């Protein structure tokens, strides 16, 4: 292999200079002469029939150009998997973030006034906010004409979990609950729509999957896809929240109808109310162990889909596939269901269904270790996967399994030590917990860790494709002088453009400064799929790598420019399948990224306030393409995981309206919430199918943080908290023996033990 002059180095991000000078432009920063302004009339009720829509007062206002309703939408349907959402509500609204009309006016002020003059008369329909109640046979239907509110269900049956539970000498059963969570990217949705010089409906917007936006816009407007174009400038974060359509079709429709440029900018309140969320889950875990080994995992997952399907039918089977953790457990029984309610639709969010079960399976592992008198490091190590281990679906774990090493590294860094024999060498008899001297202020200290994993790329037989084109200018000797990479990979902040430039520079033998990344524009850059599933380094990286090698192979004497385009399709290299509907058998995933994170906390027993003092993250990334950017992903992943653990919960009022409307009500971590010490350790067990062995990093570095913090709280206080977020009230109540802080019936997660060693 040639010397690595760019891959593996912390090269500066290609967009860094634009971003530190304020020259990077985000959707709201684009304007055009004569631009109109658009505002949305949102559903006034969370579940209601629209009886009447009176536009007269709005239309009478000077400066109003158009008020668009469902009748103006050529094909009034969209959705990333199912076309179950209406661009503009026609008859029924099913959540408060549903658009009913769009007002287009000469100024933003007039658009706002006209929006408030649109009169909608609603007939309220029964409200369903609890997914478990929505499963009742007599529950009102969110989507009339269907048999029930159940959107989907999946199962895994491996071995005989019931028999193994009956034979177990230790059974631990608990119900874990995780809340609705907001992506909270800093850039609220905004878009500019216009007809370009070729008459194409053009939208400038922040999107994770530009090509899929084009598909959905073209469908709704009943236009051929080549008459629609999306330009993706700088994006202010995404985390899954921009995978679905938000305002793109509304802006395209307004531009198409008025024939003029139209801008729409959402407020923070609109952003929080009107895009989807992370799925809340109720997770019932009943696991059994015999002779110190976990022999059975019985798991029941119930997820809230909210009002529409979005990607729920991929998120929830994803959760199912990881629900028993990266552990060798011979008997596995998992049921997963996802149910419609009148809550916000739930969708992709960093982890895509793997963050929720990680909270449950990592609390289970800690509880078993404690009950069996083993340390949490050794207990995990003896169950963790190796190369060749078998997943609950029966498939062999994809090659490149560095999970045990992530655990060893994280445990060592936070202070666990292999137990030593009298001679001073490791005794092979477990790991010793770090000693934590008491804090002078009376707060209790604890330390905990958790291991988790996430698939890289799209699963269940989906063709995970990415196309890249590369142009290379050559000197008279045929050596590359400079190059340009064309790929519609959306740069949502993680650094994909930089990694793809690094790969091209590496393959072409150029300094990264000589490789340009062409701006993302669906009319010029080929489809790279979505910026999701931690997939671009692996999937799009392979596409860029192949395009570069093909371009070089095309050189002929005297030629000064070569070009090549290549498509990578995961089904060729690492085929996956769906799951058998009865047994769950199948080979669902392309590759896995693994991570272990450890936390040291201080808990105030009087107030219940948890402070995370220190965190360590060790992640198997296959190959560290850009170590500094990986540290950035780790920091952000820990931040999001810490928020999940301690403070984040998107709340609705009993009447279905949003309670947490903005950043003063929906709290995310600030500088002061983050641990003052943070350490990141890469483990590099290459995946032979990844470019240079790389796997990906974006999601798995977020997953273990929350269960690690819960495990540290247990270590500090001696009480189990099995529901997120572990805010002061919940911690205080757990400590004072008052049970769960949430409303609802008391549930006892206490271990049901038969002859368990104490």
């Amino acid at each position: 292999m040639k010397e690595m002059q760019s891959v593996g180095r912390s090269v500066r991000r290609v967009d860094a200079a634009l971003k530190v000078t304020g020259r990077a432009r985000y959707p709201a920063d684009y304007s055009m002469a004569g631009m109109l302004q658009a505002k949305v009339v949102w559903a006034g009720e969370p579940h209601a029939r629209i009886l009447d829509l009176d536009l007269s007062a709005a239309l009478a206002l000077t400066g109003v150009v158009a008020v668009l309703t469902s009748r103006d939408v050529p094909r009034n349907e969209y959705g990333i998997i199912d076309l179950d959402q209406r661009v503009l509500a026609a008859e029924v609204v099913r959540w408060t973030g549903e658009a009913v009309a769009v007002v287009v006016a000469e100024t933003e002020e007039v658009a706002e006034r006209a929006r408030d003059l649109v009169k909608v008369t609603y007939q309220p329909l029964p409200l369903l906010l609890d997914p478990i109640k929505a499963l009742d046979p007599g529950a009102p239907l969110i989507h009339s004409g269907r048999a029930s509110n159940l959107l989907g269900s999946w199962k895994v049956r491996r071995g005989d979990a019931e028999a193994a539970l009956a034979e177990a000498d230790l059974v631990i059963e608990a119900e874990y609950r995780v809340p609705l969570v907001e992506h909270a990217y800093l850039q609220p949705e905004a878009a500019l729509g216009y007809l370009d010089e070729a008459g194409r409906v053009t939208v400038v917007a922040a999107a994770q999957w530009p090509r899929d936006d084009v598909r959905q816009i073209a469908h709704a407007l009943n236009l051929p896809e080549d008459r629609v174009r999306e330009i993706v400038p700088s994006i202010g974060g995404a985390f899954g929240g921009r995978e679905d359509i938000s305002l793109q079709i509304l802006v395209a429709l307004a531009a198409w109808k008025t024939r003029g440029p139209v801008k729409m900018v959402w407020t923070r309140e609109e952003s929080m109310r009107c895009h989807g969320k992370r799925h809340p889950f109720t997770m019932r875990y009943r696991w059994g162990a015999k002779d110190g080994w976990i022999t059975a995992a019985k798991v029941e997952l119930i997820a809230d889909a909210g009002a529409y399907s979005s990607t729920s039918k991929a998120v929830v089977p994803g959760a199912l596939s990881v629900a028993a953790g990266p552990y060798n457990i011979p008997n596995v029984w998992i049921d997963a269901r996802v149910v419609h309610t009148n809550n916000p639709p739930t969708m992709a969010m960093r982890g895509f269904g793997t963050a929720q079960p990680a909270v449950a399976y990592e609390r289970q592992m800690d509880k078993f270790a404690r009950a069996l008198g083993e340390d949490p490091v050794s207990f995990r190590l003896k169950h963790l996967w190796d190369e060749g281990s078998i997943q609950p679906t029966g498939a062999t774990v994809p090659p490149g399994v560095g999970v045990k090493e992530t655990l060893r590294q994280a445990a060592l860094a936070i202070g666990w030590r292999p137990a030593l024999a009298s001679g001073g060498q490791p005794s092979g008899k477990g790991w010793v917990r770090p000693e934590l001297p008491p804090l002078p202020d009376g707060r209790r200290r604890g330390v905990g860790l958790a291991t988790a994993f996430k698939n890289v790329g799209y699963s269940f037989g989906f063709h995970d494709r990415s196309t890249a084109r590369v142009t290379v200018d050559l000197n008279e000797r045929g050596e590359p002088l400079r190059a340009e990479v064309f790929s519609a990979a959306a740069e949502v902040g993680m650094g994909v453009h930089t990694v793809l430039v690094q790969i091209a520079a590496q393959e072409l033998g150029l300094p990264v400064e000589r490789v340009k990344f062409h701006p993302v524009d669906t009319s010029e850059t080929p489809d790279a799929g979505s910026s999701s599933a931690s997939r671009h380094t692996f999937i799009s990286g392979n596409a860029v790598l192949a395009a570069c090698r093909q371009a070089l192979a095309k050189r002929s004497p005297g030629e000064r420019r070569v070009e090549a385009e290549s498509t990578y399709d995961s089904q060729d290299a690492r085929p996956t399948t769906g799951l058998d509907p009865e047994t769950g058998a199948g080979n669902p995933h392309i590759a896995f990224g693994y991570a272990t994170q450890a936390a040291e906390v201080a808990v105030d027993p009087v107030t219940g306030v948890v402070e995370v003092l220190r965190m360590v993250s060790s992640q198997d990334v296959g190959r560290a393409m850009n170590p500094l950017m990986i540290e950035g992903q780790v920091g952000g992943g820990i931040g999001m995981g810490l928020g999940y653990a301690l403070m984040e919960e998107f709340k609705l009022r009993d009447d279905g309206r949003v309670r947490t409307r903005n950043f003063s009500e929906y709290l995310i971590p600030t500088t002061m919430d983050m641990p003052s010490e943070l350490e990141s350790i890469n483990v590099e067990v290459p995946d032979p199918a990844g470019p240079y062995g790389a796997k990906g990093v974006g999601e798995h570095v977020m997953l273990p943080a929350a269960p690690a913090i819960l495990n540290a709280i247990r270590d500090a206080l001696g009480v189990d908290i099995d529901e997120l977020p572990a805010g002061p009230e919940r911690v205080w109540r757990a400590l004072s023996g008052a049970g769960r802080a949430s409303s609802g019936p008391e549930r006892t997660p206490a271990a049901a033990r038969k002859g368990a060693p104490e």
Partner: protein
Amino acid sequence: MELVVNGERRRLRVGVNESLLQVLRDRLGLTGTKEGCAAGDCGACTVIMDGRAVLSCLVMAFQADGRHITTVEGLAEGGQGGKLHPLQEAFMEHGAVQCGYCTPGMLMSAKALLDADPKPDRETIREALAGNLCRCTGYHKIVDAVEDAARRMAEGAGGATVAIRADEARVGKAGEGS
């Protein structure tokens, strides 16, 4: 009203309900300053007014009358294209920038801090940035960058000029050819 923005005197008529943020972005075209919440919660709109970091979404335009404002566009010596401020250099080198939407506000909060306290410790930096939300980085790289910028400034090291790659989307003109 009249105000000095990035060293340049500007006179303009504003509405009574307009915020300084709207004046900067919509009237003066200085879109480097971002709106994240319009409620003073996120810090993305932070600019420096007469030496102090302020949330420009909460400052009414008339309150800025006669004031000196510095935005991210005025951070480099000599304005855009000039020598970068050590904070800008440090943010690039330390990986303090990911999506970049919080970056202009972070830079201005950090500049206000370093102007007042040239040698802050990490805890002081964390406190000074507590009003600036970031969802991408977890803040550590940002704190590293501010710490390093302070060190560079103490050593008197000026920033270098950096060629800015113009990898920006081209957006066409309205209605052309349609």
